[in-house]
């Protein structure tokens, strides 16, 4: 899981929320909703229940954010709220939560089944498998330097400066390459949604 680099932008957004900017919290939701959803899904299997708990998690996080101090990373704190909310939900319904906590690093889903082949699926639900195929295919088609820059950033959590040392190019070039790689992936997702 990304650590230091993610923390910087999270800290900036959290600071904005604490000053009354609700739009900044929207960006935090967009950033962390998929991972929070994945964590909760490991505790609860029912589709509707998971969705309710995801929303409850973020609502709790927003309310408690006033007292959040950046001693721990925002995502770690959010993850704890998600886990506790899921466990409390299970206890409230007389279901026993798992005796172990699921590590956020262990959210690799290898299941091939998808509940989203149904043509009546809501617009905002994408098929995970199809999305993965599209994204992975798009990454493979990226020019070498763009792919390398993106992977060093996403997989290795390296800073732009570190990537510029490895790729022996200016930091500005690293920034531009990562941006262009992301733009290419964005186009593919847009095509999929439309």
């Amino acid at each position, binding site marked *: 899981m990304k650590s230091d680099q993610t923390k910087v932008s999270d800290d900036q957004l959290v600071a904005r929320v604490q000053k009354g900017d609700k739009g900044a*919290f*929207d960006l935090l939701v967009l950033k962390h909703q998929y991972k929070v959803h994945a964590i909760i899904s490991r505790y609860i299997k029912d*589709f509707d229940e998971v969705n309710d708990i995801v*929303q409850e998690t973020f*609502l709790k996080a927003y309310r408690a954010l006033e007292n959040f101090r950046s001693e721990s990373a925002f995502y770690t704190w959010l993850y704890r709220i998600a886990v506790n909310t899921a466990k409390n939900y299970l206890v409230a319904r007389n279901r026993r939560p798992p005796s172990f906590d699921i590590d956020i690093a262990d959210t690799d*889903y290898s299941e091939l089944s998808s509940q989203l082949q149904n043509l009546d699926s809501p617009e905002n639900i994408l098929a*995970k498998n199809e*999305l993965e195929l599209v*994204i992975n295919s798009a990454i493979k088609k990226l020019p070498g330097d763009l792919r390398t820059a993106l992977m060093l950033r996403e997989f290795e959590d390296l*800073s732009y400066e570190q990537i510029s040392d490895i790729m022996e190019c200016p930091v500005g070039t690293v920034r531009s390459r990562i941006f262009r790689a992301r733009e290419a992936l964005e186009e593919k997702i847009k095509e999929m949604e439309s």
Partner: protein
Amino acid sequence: MVVTMSTNETQLKEALSAFIDGEATDIEVRRLLKEIPLDHTLRNSWRYHQLSSAVINKELSTEVIDFSADISSAIKLEKNHGALNLSNYFIKPLGRFAIAASVATVAILGMQQYKHTVEHPSSFVSANKIQLNLASSIIRTSAEFGIPPISARNVSISNFSQKKSKSSNKILLESRSNSENLTREQVQRYLNGLLARYNETEEKLITQ
């Protein structure tokens, strides 16, 4: 028809990509946070980049759902944090100011009282001085007033002169050796108590 982005839009989207990585400048961050709520395209770009990242890092659930609209609606009903919180920015400072003002007032009054006493000792009325009415069959002693008993050594007659006022049978007794110290000590003790109570109240307000 090919739609190309303006240079400005491109710069903004590149800044957005850098912001995801914690690499945007402060100016860029401020501009982004101002523009994103108004620019749906920019907001969507943020969402797509997060989605790509989740795919690359294998952090997706079986369903890929965007909860942001529902959560945003729920958050709208919640109070704003920080700057718009009336309690933090108005009531608490006002409370602290009121306590500080009352402590300062008491301190000033106390010092004025002390100063007045020093300048006009004959008119000083304190627990140190006991009025004896010799005509009365009951003589009240200093012990009743919680003052250390006075002995013949430290009894003295004040500036009041029997010759000047024969009609008065009142004798003012004071503890000569400690009169000024006791007065100063009493005032100091009182002020210290006030300050301690003020600090207590301040702590309570901060932790609320």
